[in-house]
């Protein structure tokens, strides 16, 4: 199974950025690069070459789904799995996000102690078989 090591995290709220970094780097041991906007993510993603991208859904400017669509246009990131972070986690809403191409949806507010586990569980889903 390919190991998950580099995560690109896209979130505009500074508070959440800090706690997400703590949750993913310190608890999960991942290497994390944080972007404050969809545009910033597009500008830096190729250089960072993440294994996985986590996108906040509601951001000013480019929202999560628009950022995903743009990422899918770039050849380097067309196949990188994406997880959405959002409060909308009713089954139809999750299905909708998956239809857009997301691997999974993690609910906000998230628990910093278990965020890494949730991410790893989603990662394993695509690695099996």
């Amino acid at each position: 199974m390919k190991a998950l090591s580099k995560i690109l995290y896209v979130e505009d709220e500074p508070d959440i950025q800090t706690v997400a970094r703590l949750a993913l780097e310190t608890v999960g041991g991942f290497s994390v690069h944080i972007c404050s906007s969809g545009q910033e993510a597009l500008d830096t993603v190729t250089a960072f070459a993440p294994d996985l991208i986590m996108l906040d859904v509601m951001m000013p400017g480019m929202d999560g789904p628009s950022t995903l669509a743009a990422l899918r246009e770039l050849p380097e990131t067309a196949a990188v799995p994406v997880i959405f972070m959002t409060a909308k986690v009713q089954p139809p809403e999750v299905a909708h996000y998956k239809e857009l191409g997301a691997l999974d949806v993690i609910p906000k507010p998230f628990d910093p102690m278990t965020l890494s586990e949730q991410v790893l569980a989603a990662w394993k889903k695509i690695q099996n078989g």
Partner: protein
Amino acid sequence: MADTSELQARLRALRESYAADLPGKLDEIHRYWQQLATAQWSVELIEALHLRIHTLAGSGGTFGFNRLSEQARAVERVLKRCIEEKSQEFWDSQSGCLAPMLAALSQAASEPVAETIPLSSKGKAVAAKPPSGGRCLIYLVEDNTTLAESMALQLEHFGYLVRTFHGSEALAQALTSERPMAVVMDIVLPQGVMAGAKAIREADAEEAEPVPLIFISSRNDLQARLEAIRAGGDAYFVKPVDIHALIARLDKVTERTQPEAYRILIVEDDATLASHYALVLSEAGMDVETLTRPLEIMESLARSTPDLILMDVYMPDCSGLELAKLVRQQDSYLSIPIVFLSSEDNLDKQFRALRTGGDDFLTKPIADEYLLSSVSIRAERARLIRSLMAQDSLTGLLNHAKIKEQLVIEESRHRRMQAAFTFVMIDIDHFKAVNDNYGHMTGDRVIKSLSRLLQQRLRKSDSIGRYGGEEFAVILADCDVAAATRLLDDIRTSFAAIAHRHEGEPFSVTFSAGLASFPLCDSAAELNRVADEALYEAKRLGRNRVVAAAEPRQQQRGNRKS
């Protein structure tokens, strides 16, 4: 992995920093709120307010402010409707109930919750944060060591952390040092019948909330069950224990499947009264919508089904009784409890009201506590009943719970017969677009038409269920994967050819399907997982196709995380 105490210290520092910023954020929200009450009202202002509330909702819980997130979520829902309606008049009708909700928001911002203290409210039960990095601790008390081992293994497979006891001695002591989320206990232990239960209840006497107790027993008679109730048991399973049912119950008592807040619809033309009731209920964690114009009820119901409707009887446009009859005309709303609120204390008139389809009659003026209890109890039972009803109300097919049950039944049946069967997950493509473009009523008709097609094409021995939303599950008994694929592909083409209509205009819809078969997959859980993955693959490959899992996926047994 870093040292936990250092980590906790850093998290605490972040929480404190977040808490310090909160007053400023709330001030800003308050400023928007005040502006909206003046001539500067605009939809853009509401959107700006909505954005800030949304941010609070999405971050509060991460920093220990669970109630803040919940309250913000509730406010967010009202604001979204105001944005949709775009009218100042509508805003004014909602501002009565928004004001107390915003006040509650400010209050929630001053009450952070530390990790281990459980929040408890009647509107929504929230358990203590489970320890051990997210895994729930269960005590298993069973003197039959083989059974204990096998049960522990299965429980751990579902993500629980199990500590096994073979008798009641060590139990009381263990309970005081490390509190489990639930205890599963055999009624008969070497120390005597109900010995374990007594030990637990004694150790537990000091606690505010008793630890949930689930009994297992080989006895199924009334006396045994009665004793179990008297000993404070929350559930009773007869051996051999159905592990799936046990897990479902454990999930419920440990609140792992976080229940949604009860959704309450209040229909009351007196805006002050309406906002008072709304405040009482939303403070308890419920999600409340108020209608001061009763004729809007059908629209509101179509948008989202409440768990309970609280309805005033005497209203200008339309009496509560007529409204209740209107609601009950529709089959899908038959099961929603309707509680009347009125100053009517004449018993005859009350009965007449109940005959129109109401479930309860509360007389005004009503004490807050009594209103809250009546509503909670009814909403809770209604939810339970709906989940247990075998049929999905829209389609008449098996509901989610029943089809999952059926899968387990078919698995053991086919194992005995040594025959193959196939499990299929079907998902309508782009269903959200159908709802968005044509509305939910047309969406429902599309769902009904697929369910009718499935019923026509499949045999009596097959099971069809509505898994949820636009997802269906089918169990094709005594059918190998090749035959199943041919059959589903045929149904797929037929469904794609149907001309659905919206206001005379025809449109077509397709579905994707994933298949998994037994004995290639050898458990219900695996069938479920593999079919789901095949469905995902079908979507990924472009939709409107059927994908059969070719070979069993290897499960990583040695790598158990929660």
